[in-house]
């Protein structure tokens, strides 16, 4: 058995002093102590990366999402008369890369004085959140700013069918249990 030894490298004076006084160990101790002290006196601000404690206690504190976060879809209503802004133009369904939007519409005769206009009116709007990849293309395509991806991210449901959001859910939002503890 040949012995495998490599002669230890010569150390500089600085390295020797650092090893003698265990500087590296104390550096580590100082760092952890600083964190510990800050955790005790800083006011809590969950999810703030500049804080000593980064934890956000999720159900109690709502998670912070960034400004451009895209979450649950929503169909906006006209604030004046409460009617849907959607004109059933189907552009969002056309542009959707994963085909998760189905727009159902009927043609309705709308009298405008003497004229009789045929107008498309939205009946159903199905949005499959399980297939959606939140790419925002449908929102870009929407000519009336009706479809929108909101900041809410709580999309969990108890059954697969719950992922298919109908028009009512899209307009009012889903109601999920709000835990506060």
């Amino acid at each position, binding site marked *: 058995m040949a012995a495998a030894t490599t002669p230890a490298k010569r150390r500089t004076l600085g390295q020797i002093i650092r090893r003698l006084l265990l500087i590296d160990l104390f550096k580590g101790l100082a760092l952890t102590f600083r964190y510990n002290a800050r955790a005790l006196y800083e006011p*809590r601000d969950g999810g703030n990366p500049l804080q000593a404690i980064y934890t956000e206690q999720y159900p109690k504190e709502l998670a912070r999402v960034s400004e451009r976060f895209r979450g649950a879809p929503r169909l906006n209503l006209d604030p004046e008369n409460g009617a849907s802004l959607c004109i059933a133009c189907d552009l969002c369904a056309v542009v959707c890369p994963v085909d998760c939007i189905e727009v159902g519409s009927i043609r309705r005769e709308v009298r405008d004085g003497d004229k009789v206009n045929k107008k498309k009116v939205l009946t159903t709007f199905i949005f499959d959140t399980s297939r959606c990849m939140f790419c925002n293309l449908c929102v870009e395509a929407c000519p009336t700013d009706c479809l929108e991806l909101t900041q809410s991210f709580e999309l969990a449901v108890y059954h697969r069918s719950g992922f298919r959001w109908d028009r009512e859910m899209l307009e009012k939002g889903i109601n999920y249990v709000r835990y506060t503890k």
Partner: protein
Amino acid sequence: MNVIITTLLFAAPEWVRTAITRERQPNVFWSEYVVWPLIQILIVLFIVLTVVAYLVWVERKVSAFMQARLGPMRVGPWGLLQPLADGLKLLLKEDLIPSKADQSVFTIAPIISVVAAFVVLAVIPWGSTWATIANINIGLLFVLAVSSISVLGLVLAGWSSNSKYSLLGALRSSAQMVSYEIGMGLSIIGALMFARTLSLNGIIEAQQADRIWYVLFQPVGFVVYIVSALGETNRAPFDLPEAESELVAGYHTEYSGFRWALFFMAEYTSVIVTTAIAVTLFLGGWTLFGLESRITPVAFSIVVAVLLALLALLIFWRGVMGEPPSIMRTVGMAAAALFILAAIALAVTHPFTEQGARVLFSVGVFAGKILVLIYAYMWFRWTWPRYRYDQLMALGWKWMIPAGLTNIVLTGIWFVLALPKPQGVFGLMREQAGRLLPTGKGIAYFIATAFVLTIPITWTLLATINRRTRDFNLAEQRQLQMRLRRERLEKQLQKGARESEQAQV
């Protein structure tokens, strides 16, 4: 004959005595040696077990803060009821015994560990006069002897589980504990030279008389003791036996439920014990710059009141782990009001006797010092990475033990030089009430020799011993093995090729 009768009478109940000797006499035996110690034992056990439970909580909190986390927050306000939940969970868990295990040994192993850890609590000097359960004159020896039995618990646990993981873990931890016990034993001798007694209360009183904490006379001894104690309790950078991140579990792999909890109780109790011994030997025990013998009931009441008021403030202080939980805002109001009322009542009435105040103050000081050291243990644990096994052994045998020995020799030399004039050279000590006390110059001399001479000499010696210690290169060794094997295989292949050629020819 007479002697036997008197000794028998001494241990006899009172009615037997009066019946035999026909005279009434107070029987101190029951009160002094049975009832009062039992009360003390119950109090100490209750406090220590509570502290052990809450040390787990504290450790989880401290580690969380050091890692930018919150730690337990869900059970009770700030997770304060977590120990309760943990205990309940462990009690309700199924208590498994492996079918191939040696049942009797398997059940007795954790008990040995726990008993070895708890028996030591009897001689710890929790405070002055009546606060210590048993002030025996070989206290330190007793502590070292009994705490080494806990190794047996680990070995038996690992062996009886009949599992390779347990056995390997037990081997590791027993080797580690046995090696670090040597360093521990060597490190305390320097302090014993100054104290000249093994009684733990005696050591503290010696520091009182010398007007110094021995950590200043014994910096090397203190460091060696702390490192050895960490190794001894299987904690911090030496937690090889448990090594949550790399092993299955260690010696308690096959344990579950309450037996498993017993091992952890033993570990945390031994943490308390080792810190208590460190405080006793090096940090002046329950003394605090002479305050413990001078404090008046009024002053002590004010101290307690201030602490209570601080506790009340803490409930409402938003900084600590954030917003007080809703339960604390309602219950905390009442609690804080009660605390403040109690503080005011204490400050006004100061319901302590002279001696009671002093003893309670000394107990508080001792507890405070222990807590500081325990925090240091946790601090080390969550800062430094774990040692590899060979490094651990190298640290024990090639650093700690030589350092301890050097410290003993050098301390002895400084001590002999400083003896009073006829024997010594410098005459920096004086005889007083059968004790050798260093004079004012003597104290300066001892501190100077310790820091200016002992530390550098020890370092040079250790550096000399370990000069080529890093020459051994594990990676290189592995490479060498692989190279040799490759060469061997190549040779075999060539041989095979040659043979096949010859066969063809």
